[in-house]
């Protein structure tokens, strides 16, 4: 593969991802904030009171959050193969959610299904009489079949298995020192913004909470707030130059989402620059998780962020210190590690003299 082809492949892969992200962001905002408002109104036991306003909002928000991965997968596939990719893409995303392999499963699935549909679209030659059926029936059907096979055979089990191994490892660590436990929990959350890796940690915390142990859940609530808060503060206030204008816009909503513990608010940053963002958020969230355990922060609810504070233990000063330290560390690391983005300030003429390669496609 030549250098140029490699560059083209990379830029088209990222174009598909960004198309998916652009459709996903409003879904995260809808679900995350409604869920938080529900938790704020309904308090700790919101899910035990069906029919109350808090319950209805929380439940609805949760349903919207369930759409995040399917929408991401569907629009990655849509970007690759156009409309016929949507149905199989949605399916692959829903299956990823069902198998609890969330974001990573949905992204891999979305790409594979998208390219599969594109392949059929361009390579399967059919009689003219059957042609109208291609986008309506044949591609979605074959694509759906591919989605099911992919998720239940090819990528689902290995990813789920990997997760199972990690959960077992994590549980065996539970008896270790409190700081280490909290730090691992937080670090997992910080690695993929409560994606499948983070879910390993949150699943254990949620499980322990069901057994009446509220410490890990407290650490989780605090740690989950750190990545979006820190990325938001870094992009909007402290290190504007290191982010694109689009990220600065995402940063404002990330701060709000972070306050309400919607970790996914950090995803736009992670997806654009994973190698630099992940170490920062993982370390910051790990410190918060560890500190929260030491301070004895406890939470009887899984979601909410500041909305959960009223029902949590040791919020002042424990949780506040833990979160602040984690955010400050993350923002500091981002300042060190992220690179500046060249800015364009001049209004007249071009901002860059760099030689531009322009190719016109004549058809």
């Amino acid at each position, binding site marked *: 593969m030549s250098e140029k082809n490699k560059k083209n492949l990379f830029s088209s892969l990222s174009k598909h991802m960004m198309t998916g992200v652009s459709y996903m962001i409003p879904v995260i905002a809808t679900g995350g904030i409604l869920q938080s408002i529900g938790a704020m109104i309904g308090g700790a036991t919101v899910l035990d009171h069906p029919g109350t306003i808090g319950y209805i909002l929380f439940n609805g928000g949760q349903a919207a959050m369930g759409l995040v991965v399917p929408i991401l997968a569907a629009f990655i596939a849509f*970007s690759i193969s156009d409309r016929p990719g949507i149905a199989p893409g949605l399916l692959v995303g829903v299956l990823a959610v069902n198998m609890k392999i969330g974001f990573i499963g949905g992204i891999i699935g979305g790409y594979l299904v998208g390219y599969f549909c594109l392949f059929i679209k361009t390579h399967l030659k059919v009689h003219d009489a059957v042609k109208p059926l291609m986008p309506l029936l044949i591609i979605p059907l074959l694509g759906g079949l591919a989605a099911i096979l992919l998720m239940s055979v090819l990528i689902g089990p290995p990813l789920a298995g990997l997760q199972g191994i990690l959960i077992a490892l994590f549980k065996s660590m539970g008896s270790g020192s409190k700081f280490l436990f909290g730090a691992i929990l937080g670090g997992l959350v910080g690695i993929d913004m409560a994606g499948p890796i983070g879910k390993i940690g949150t699943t254990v915390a949620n499980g322990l909470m069901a057994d009446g142990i509220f410490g890990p859940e407290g650490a989780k609530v605090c740690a989950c707030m750190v990545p979006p808060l820190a990325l938001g503060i870094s992009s909007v206030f402290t290190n504007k130059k290191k982010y694109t204008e689009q990220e600065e816009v*995402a940063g404002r909503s990330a701060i709000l989402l972070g306050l309400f513990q919607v970790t996914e608010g950090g995803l736009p940053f992670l997806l654009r620059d994973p190698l630099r963002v992940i170490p920062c958020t993982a370390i910051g969230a790990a410190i918060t998780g560890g500190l929260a355990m030491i301070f004895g922060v406890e939470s009887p609810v899984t979601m909410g962020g500041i909305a959960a504070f009223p029902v949590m233990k040791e919020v002042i000063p424990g949780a506040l210190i833990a979160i602040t330290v984690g955010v400050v560390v993350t923002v500091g690391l981002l300042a060190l590690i992220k690179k500046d983005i060249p800015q364009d300030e001049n209004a007249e003429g071009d901002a*860059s003299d760099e030689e531009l390669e*322009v190719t*016109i496609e004549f*058809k």
Partner: protein
Amino acid sequence: MKIIAISACTMGVAHTFIAKDKLIEASDRLGHQIKVETQGSVGAENILTEEDVKAADIVIIAADININGEERFKGKPIVRVSVTVAIKQPEQLIKKIEEQLKAKK
């Protein structure tokens, strides 16, 4: 030269519209006519009509994501660039297009 363009960025709230302004500025300075359709997160605005497409000499697609309605430009010469190029080097972009179109004729 009659230019039509589409701009679309990931978030669809900032860059899309900066690109539109920069393209219009550059086109005005160089004495061309331009119409830019923005496909932001509010949906498509300033939509290119069939007449616009028919009259256009060149289609500029300045997008970081896949755009809607590309089939409208079938048979038209198309240039694809990232939103960043439209923001940073709109003049050079338009000049190069002009050169290449002339060379073609």
